[in-house]
């Protein structure tokens, strides 16, 4: 016991520089992520500026009712979850495919070029993306209507007034914008796989496909699980830029583009109600947290060592 304690003390002393290096990060997480947890109480309070966070009176779940009052509650939740599920599924698939393809590129120069090029959309602000989309889809000047539809002898399509096209448009835009970034993460993992596995596989006569299914994918599994769990934690959130900017906040498209975030933004724009805004945040973060716990429990029961915790 005594020696163990001494051991610990010595260990701490030896790693002191490392602990020291951890301090800024720790401080950041405490200030930025843990201290605001106290603000969760705002979701259950009628916030009064004159009384402050701690002094404001409680008002039960009254802040939450507006989320469900609207006839659109179902549409909003469906959109938020539905889009996120599609994004997670297709996004992961696309990212892995691109990462593997990237890995198969033999020439170093080209590989680096592709790597940079696929990252570019990720770096473009959604405000600019919304104009790129508008340049393609606009009714009077848009490229698709004027250069493609006309040439094919079709009538111009009123993209911005008919919600039925938007599930596809949103998905394409989101995938186009985000696949580069996630591909890089998978690509980095693939680069880290020991080349000896592949050499052994080649010796055993495995083709490219066999190598992918037998080595690359299993090695990628921990990263896939981690990234998917992280995205599931944010499944009740939606990218505000994507859902607000890209459809240009057009009313007729709400059925296909309204998510929890945009609904809350529009609903509270007029009233600036801090309690209600916190209530929406509360639901998003708490449900997301529970979902992560649940998914992790499922992963743990299937394959213990792959679980996050």
């Amino acid at each position, binding site marked *: 016991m005594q020696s163990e304690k001494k051991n610990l003390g010595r260990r701490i002393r030896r790693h002191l520089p490392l602990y020291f290096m951890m301090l800024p990060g720790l401080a950041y997480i405490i200030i930025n992520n843990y201290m605001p947890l106290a603000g969760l109480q705002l979701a259950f309070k009628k916030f009064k*500026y004159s009384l402050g966070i701690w002094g404001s009176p409680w008002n039960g779940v009254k802040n939450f009712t*507006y989320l469900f009052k609207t006839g659109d509650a179902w549409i909003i939740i469906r959109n938020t979850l539905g889009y996120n599920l599609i994004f997670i599924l297709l996004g992961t698939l696309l990212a892995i495919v691109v990462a593997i393809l990237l890995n198969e590129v033999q020439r170093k120069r080209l590989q680096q070029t592709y790597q940079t090029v696929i990252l570019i959309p990720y770096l473009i602000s959604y405000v600019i993306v919304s104009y790129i989309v508008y340049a393609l889809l606009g009714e009077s000047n848009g490229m698709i209507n004027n250069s493609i539809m006309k040439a094919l002898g079709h009538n111009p399509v009123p993209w911005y007034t008919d919600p039925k096209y938007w599930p596809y448009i949103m998905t394409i835009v989101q995938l186009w914008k985000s696949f580069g970034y996630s591909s890089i993460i998978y690509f980095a993992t693939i680069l880290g796989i020991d080349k000896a596995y592949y050499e052994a596989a080649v010796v055993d006569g495995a083709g490219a496909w066999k190598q992918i299914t037998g080595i690359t994918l299993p090695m990628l599994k921990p990263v896939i699980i981690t990234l998917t769990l992280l995205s599931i934690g944010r499944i009740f959130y939606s990218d505000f830029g994507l859902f607000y900017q890209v459809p240009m906040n057009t009313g007729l498209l709400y059925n296909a583009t309204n998510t929890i975030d945009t609904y809350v933004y529009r609903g509270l724009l007029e009233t600036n109600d801090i309690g209600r805004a916190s209530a929406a945040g509360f639901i998003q973060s708490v449900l997301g947290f529970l979902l992560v716990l649940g998914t992790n429990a499922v992963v743990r029961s299937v394959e213990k060592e792959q679980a996050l915790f």
Partner: protein
Amino acid sequence: MKRTLAVLLTLAMLFSCLSFASAEGTTETIQVAYMLTMNAAEQRQMVQDAVNQLLAKKGLGVQVEFVCIDFASWATQINLMLTDGSVDLFNACFMPTISVLADNGSIAPMDDLFNQYGQGILQTLGDYIDCAKVGGVLYGAPKMNAFSSALMFVMNKDICDEVGIDPTTITDFDTLTAALQKVHAAKPDLTMIANGKLGAYMDTINADSLGTQYPLGCLLLGEDGTSLKVQNYYASDTFKNLLGYVKQWAGNGFFMKDPMNAQDGSMAYISNGQAFGGFVSYSDEATAVSVQQKAIGKDIYAAQITAAPWATTNNINGMTWCVPSLSTHKEAAVKFLNELFTDPELSNLVCNGIEGVHYVVTDQGNITYPEGLDAASTGWPSGMGTFWPNICITYPWSPDPADIYQNWLASNDTCSKSPALGFTFDSSDVADEVSSCATVVDKYVPALLLNIGDTDALYQSFLNELEASGINDIITAKQAQLDTWAASK
């Protein structure tokens, strides 16, 4: 011994500091929020010094510091400052309504302070001060203005003259439509009716929205102007008739291409020559021309479309000067506000800048830029007078006539007043319904007013969704509060 001496000395110093502070305490410095738009107010320090010199001469014990905030971040910044009291006086424009601000405790009640230090405010505003009351308690001072408004159509003067349109013949939607047809025939490529962002191009007409942004339960002022019956604007004949005209306008091709994707205010399209005209709301045609001509930069005509300009609470309290409840200088803030309302010298300073530096007085009794300066290069914004509490006691800018503000004040006495003038709605009981109905309005109204899609079907589902979102609860709540208010008058 030495130690005792040291302690004594320290105490003595402390006391002298304290007494010094209390002597100095007669002068308080207050933070006043000022909005920056196109002009960055580079000489703000010069104007602030001049204001403080003037205040020192008056011996009020108040000094000011301008906190300049960009228009784009105005609401967010002010909202933040309300949480810690770092501003002492602000104009609650582009913010939630004052009933919301009063309800969430961010602005302080003003009854006692105005009685003590704000007699000038009360006298200047007269009965119109009631529009800043929430539940019988006064929460601020609406800025002086021509308070009433009617729907106007402003149009490019050169085109009117070329095609032969006499703006005085345009008095309603029928005569407007006829005139637009004539212009459209001569200029088929020109947009007749410009719209702004999200397809918006027209305010609510002839209705008192009773304290909500959209007329979710309103008084229809066109009918007889005295009824206190709260109704659904979107189900009213006013709105249905409007939709009829919209169909005609769309059929004739009067609207912009891709109207929903407009990225500018509607007037910008008249300015850049893409559109012939657009709708605005002002108290009278002359004011519409004077204000919009400056913004558009082209000669324009204005024609009043609805019969009478109406004064409603919404029109008046949208720009109310308030004191945050966390401010520690409330008295000083009200003293300064009182001076802004009553002292022409001070009001001229904040509205127009320093004479000889930012403006010169002309022979006609109005003011213009000094030699070599213009709206962009002058160091104190010339177009922001309407932001301050009382532009009506300042010099108007050329080409406005010297007596333009007298006309404004006269219009306040003669305009039609909504029977609910002075009533503010406390929406906290139906806040869920209000935000949910507002979403429905955002969803349908722009499309309906531009005739996009199958408007008959859209209109039906619009009305249905409004009902499902609880518009009738809002109407009932408004009616109940309005009746109580009317009974107490």
